[in-house]
């Protein structure tokens, strides 16, 4: 369970590019997209393990995107990463199943730990499902 797929969603292009580059250097299969709509269609064809989602974006906002991702792909973990400190959004996001709510500026190592933890959670879940379906047969 070393390398996993992560999708980064942020409308700040410069920030996004740098982040994706740094993630790749750390052996994470990272992709970046600039909007929630793009993210949803990307995941449809390229399943990912963890999504890192900006909260405030033009078009569909992060909360709406979170709801949609969780509806379509309940096992995909979503981390919210935002420049807005907003308690209500944070709580709402976690009620909707977000793994965590993080604020920029974020130390890159800390972010990677979060990604790893989120992926571990998904992995444990999936493992359980795998074994249980095997038991059903």
């Amino acid at each position: 369970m070393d390398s996993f797929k992560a999708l980064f969603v942020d409308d700040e292009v410069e920030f996004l590019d740098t982040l994706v580059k740094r993630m790749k250097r750390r052996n994470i299969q990272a992709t970046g997209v600039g909007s929630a709509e793009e993210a949803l269609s990307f995941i449809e064809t390229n399943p990912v393990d963890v999504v890192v989602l900006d909260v405030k974006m033009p078009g569909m906002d992060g909360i709406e995107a979170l709801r949609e991702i969780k509806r379509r792909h309940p096992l995909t973990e979503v981390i919210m990463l935002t420049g807005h400190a907003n308690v209500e959004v944070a709580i709402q996001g976690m009620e909707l199943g977000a793994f965590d709510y993080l604020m920029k500026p974020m130390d890159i190592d800390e972010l990677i730990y979060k990604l790893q933890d989120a992926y571990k959670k998904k992995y444990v879940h999936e493992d359980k499902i795998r074994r249980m379906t095997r038991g059903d047969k």
Partner: protein
Amino acid sequence: MGLIHKLRKAISAGRKKAAPVDAEELRIAFRARYHQFKLLLNANNRALEIMAEMEEALKGTWPFGMHFVRARCTAVAASVFQIVKHINELAPGPYEALYERFKEIQKKINPYLSSARHTLEGPLVISLDKVDRNLADLVGGKMANLGEMKNRLFLNVPEGFIITAQAYFRFMEAGGLQSEVDRMIQATDASRLDELFALSAALQQLIIRSPLPEELEQAIEEHYSILEKNVKANVAVAMRSSALGEDAAGASFAGQYRSILNVRRETLFQAYREIVASKYGLTAMSYRLNRGIRDEDVAMCVGCLAMVDAQAGGVVYSRNPVRPGDDAIVINSVLGLPKSVVDGSSAVDVFTVSRGKDPPEIEKEIAIKVNKFLCYPDEGICRIELTEEEGEKPSLTDEQATEIALIAGRLEEYYGTAQDVEWALDNEGAIVFLQSRPLQQRSDEEAKAPPEIDRDAKDSALITGGITASGGTGVGTVFVVRKDMDALSFPEGGVLVTEQSLPRWAPLLSRAAAVVTEQGSLAGHLGNVAREFGVPALFGVKGAVENLKDLKEITVDADSRVIYRGRIDSIAKAPAKKKGLMEGSPVLETLKGASRHIIPLNLLDPDSPNFVPSRCMTFHDITRFCHEKSVHEMFEFGKRHHFPERSSKQLLCDVPMQWWILNLDDGYREEVEGRYVRIDNIVSIPMRAIWEGISAFPWEGPPPVDGKGLMSIMFEATANTSLVPGVRSSYGNRNYFMISKNYCSLTSRLGFHFSTIETLVSERSSENYISFVFKGGAADYERRLKRVLFVGDILEEFGFRISVKEDTLMARMEDRDLEYMTGRLKVLGYLTIHTRQLDMIMLRSKSVDQYRAKMNDHFKKLLAPLKQ
């Protein structure tokens, strides 16, 4: 769907003893629970770290802004919410009430975090004729004062109008501008000067590029047309910032925002945007940060006043700002526009006018002025070189100086406090007033008579002279700043040496030990800031840059106006403590209010009947409650399911010990059948460290050993608690390790005291922590307390943060690397064993000292291999 359902059931299976499940399924369920538990611990740890950080901030000794308050409150809420979520997933049912508690507490915090929505009413633009002091909330303090001078004191003040706070809010809210600004600030690390520079530039660009609401453009144009009618066609205006909220926290430092002179109709909007943008100038931003002024309280109003084409101008102080006892009136004056007095960029004439004498005595220091500022005919201002003959001429006649002084005296009387007044002399020789504000004065204590020049240090004296812009003495390394790039690397505690006293060096003052400049008067902004921050400043020191640039350490005695080579101890008293600038500031008060619902801990005793969700009054209470319960739930799982693989084992170390181990995940080298686990089968990094501390030295101190050595004592001690091995008892009543490779929680009752260690130690230094709680004892309260303090003292030496409540000691440590942490765990393991019954000797200080000496020796041995 069925799958998910089944999954949920499996996770929550822990609650019931119901259907027997097979071992494999239990193992998976246990692993999922452990992962949940680990996430809970992570969140728990983060919540406690943020609370500690907030507590530190509450001391008010370092600057922070509202974005800090919001970010920390949001992060702590997010963490606590996660904790609640995790405990409910670990054990669905009994903890659901916590969601309600969480929301109740959050509701109490919210008012401190929401931006105070302005409920201001009033026009977007208002004529200066209609303004007086009562309208300060609409037009800002500076313009309200100017209106007062014009309409109540009937002084000669230019015609004009003001673009109000209402207009500012309308502008910033249009198109979500404010929200974008907030986001950019939040996402920047404000402790780094270079990031702050970049942020400031980006914010200003953003504002300057944003369009004004149409209704605002119309209102400005209308008022400009009225001004044209009243003054003349195509009238030039001076656009001056007049911010709201500058007066908060007793801050009087104005001039950190832009003023733009000689503006015509075509560029009104652009100039307005530039002035609004200057709210995010570096000087202004770091000023607010350092004074705890909330960004949202600062609304930028802009006064547009008919331009005075000045032949001379300057500033008058109704008192001497650096010598409060002196009641003479001091005028700083230049040729042309008063601009260069205010920004400290050139030499000024100083007229000191005595008070209450007719005719007054006037003391004059006429400077050789090398240039002056004038309006260009169309737009903007220019600097003109003066010939020597022109430059030597006094900028004012004695009559003019007398008149200015007279009015300054009147203004002081009217406002009841010393004033700092900007004025200009128009082409007809009439005196026009442009601004009046309270004067920053040094307190009497600061202004004691200058000390004698140190005779012993005479040889070290380098330079004498200059003007005391801010008193005191400072020692530091010379750092010459010529351009912005230099400023980026300005060191903490350096002596700022620069040519001109420019306002743009103000952000450096919070780090500077002293300031020395070649030009500038105490009237300039830099001097104001230096006084406000209590940084010694010597201005007008000729050749300072050239003479000091190659030196390292110097001593600046701003009071007696001497600069010495090196550190002169007799002069450099302990550096005057910088004022606790955050004290009483709006930002600090906001943090105080919010943290009342976050930080205090009311739930201390897990055995108390009050240890229930409904008694959780703060986030800390919820955190504490959930932590205790989660450990309990983890332990219960293995027991409840008769799950031998995941129930506790007795530790085997040659012989069975009175210590039980619960393996949460990967704490064993290999799985264990049966009742016992051998110490060398344990791979938990923190547990091995603690155990090393426990077992390294046999107990030798009082009470005397009976000869059977460490093992027997450990048997005895645990037997004291009247627990018989094998009897099922609550986890809290035995010596229990819960372990994984990187995690360990130890609950122990040895002798009569109760202690817990909880720790996470891995390569992720930023997640590492140790938490230690130590309580109880058999002796009387006084002895128990002494022991707690004794242990606390040792832990502080080893870098723990401690707090003591009654006879309970709590110690924490975070963020250190693996090696450091394991060393500390050895110490804790040692203390767990060796402070046993120490309270019996606690009142005999001699034996305490002996005991302490021996312990120190042991610590050295315990930690020694680490140092190699």
